């Protein structure tokens, strides 16, 4: 793929849940490679649905979803799953981690399902790369690696989730209100680390939040309400 290829490119997208009115109608939404986008919108505005579409879990009724030039709507379901595992990292609002795995195992989880993502790391072995990411996100101390994730604070858990999303240098990182459960200082801290690491790996970042005070930290800020032409949205 050419480096100039946009990370995400949605065109004439229409989506509605079965039997429900039109939820999303987006003429065009593009995220350039390595670009960091702040996507704001109140809850219920279809944010999670949009992320599901980008992740290839949902399929729109109309339009195209190009991620790194690949139109997800033309892929079979299992290929979309593989594509997601290979190229997209997700961070959710909270409870991101598998409770019965250690910190390091949680970070290395994508490598289990996507050999391509593990291979992309090339030189360093997986555990070392996991440790590097955790260190970059402020969880470098050896003591964290093999701890049960349930012993971590919420802020630490979110950083583990960020390390997992970044593992294997995915082209796109999607974060769905990852800071809403954090207090102010932890929020700034987390965001700085996340943006730093995305820049270092040149991963595009789609950061969804309703907290507009964070917007200045990003390359661009987009309002979903303005983007979405569907009128039925109770925004």
């Amino acid at each position, binding site marked *: 793929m050419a480096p100039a290829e946009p990370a995400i490119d949605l065109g004439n997208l229409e989506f509605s849940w079965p039997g429900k009115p039109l939820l999303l109608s987006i003429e065009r939404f593009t995220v350039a490679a390595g670009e960091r986008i702040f996507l704001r919108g109140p809850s219920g505005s279809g944010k999670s649905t949009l992320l599901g579409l980008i*992740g290839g879990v*949902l399929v729109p009724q109309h339009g195209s979803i190009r991620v790194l030039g690949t139109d997800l709507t033309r892929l079979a379901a299992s290929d979309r*799953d*593989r594509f997601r*595992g290979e190229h997209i990292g997700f961070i*959710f*609002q909270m409870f991101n*981690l598998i409770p*019965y795995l250690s910190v390091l195992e949680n970070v290395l989880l994508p490598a289990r*399902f996507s050999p391509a993502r593990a291979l992309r790391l090339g030189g360093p072995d997986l555990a070392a790369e996991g440790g590097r990411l955790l260190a970059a996100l402020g969880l470098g101390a050896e003591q964290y690696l093999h701890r049960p994730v349930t012993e971590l604070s919420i802020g630490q858990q979110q950083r583990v989730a960020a390390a997992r999303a970044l593992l294997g240098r995915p082209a796109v990182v999607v974060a769905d209100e990852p800071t809403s459960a954090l207090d102010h200082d932890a929020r700034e801290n987390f965001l700085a680390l996340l943006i730093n690491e995305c820049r270092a790996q040149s991963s595009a970042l789609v950061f969804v939040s309703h907290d507009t005070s964070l917007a200045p930290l990003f390359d661009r800020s987009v309002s979903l309400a303005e983007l979405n032409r569907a009128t039925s949205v109770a925004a």
Partner: protein
Amino acid sequence: MPTLSLALRSIWNRRATALLTIFAIAVSVTLLLGVQKLRVAAKDGFANTVSGVDLIVGARSGPLNLLLYSVFRVGDATANVSWDSYQKIARHPDVAWTIPISLGDSHRGFRVMGTTLDYFRHYHFAGSRELRFAAGKPFEDLYDAVLGADVAEQLRYRLGDPIVIAHGIGNVSFANHDDKPFRVVGILARTGTPVDRTVHVSLEAITAIHIDWQSGAQAMPGQRVTAEAARSRELQPDSITAFMVGMQSKVMTFTMQRAINEYRLEPMLAIIPGVALSQLWSLVGIADTALMIVAAFVVLAGLLGMVTAILTSLQERRREMAILRSVGARPRHVFALMIIESVALALAGVLLGVCLTYGALYLGQPLLQSRFGIFVAIGGLNAYDFAILGSIIAAAFLMGVLPAWRAYRNTLSDGLTLRI
């Protein structure tokens, strides 16, 4: 397989519930295997009740009736075999030996059997095991008695103890042969067969205690014969209840059987013990089939419990599934995760169940042997056992499809939405 270790870690994370589930399956497997082992042991033990005997001959009746009273000491003979007919067969050149049996009396609920010393020589059980004496020796004197192991143990008899034989076979008898008491001279080692519940005396002794009896009642006082006086009388019986035959050559067995059954001077019946035993087992064996069915249903209940536990856990694991989806897991991975969980739990249950079974067998073997006369061989698992265990795992797999399918459907509808 990215899911195998995940599934196992997930089970470990819920180990309290998992352990209970495994234990429930293990107990049911133990029951099933135990019943299976016991029924094999019971069947073998049954078939081993008598061996080395080629024919059993009695007055003409049904084969099962003859088998029951001659070997199992259950029921009564309808008629006797005359001494002449017995002698005729016993002296036949093809016949190697015979064991005459005279039944009809009892001692405190245990049957008394009159026989000869050939009984201790030729009677075998469980393949080629001979009758052994735990104490004492065979009867010599007219009023000597040899006890089976159960008789001696339950009635606490020792060598030299006097015993009185009752007329008839009721548990409580009002007509006793108390004028001619016997003395215990031998106690047989345990056999696990009806021999253990038998009091053995000589054929002549049976004649002696009935010498002054007519029509089921003893003669008037004054016409009675004392124990000592009886010794000098003619004690050869007119008839016996039945007799066992050992042939010179096994191939002659059928010929002899037919000859006896067609004997014109006296209606007699000859049976081959092995054939009659398997006929009898086909009647008795229904009970253990029923037991086996019950055990199978207990296993089914154990597996249903497992599926219930997994289904209950699904709701709280939806988040976990969404996380796995977000890192590239396909719905079929989720399906596999749940199936692996079912099979792993069942496998652990089966393994634990096998261990419990063998533990129970080691502990219970002496007890079963001594109390019930059932010898349970602690061998390895046979092909049938493996088939049983394999079908339990297969059943777990099939039943695991239900929660797996539910999780699969949840995963498709949840997508990346973290439902809490």
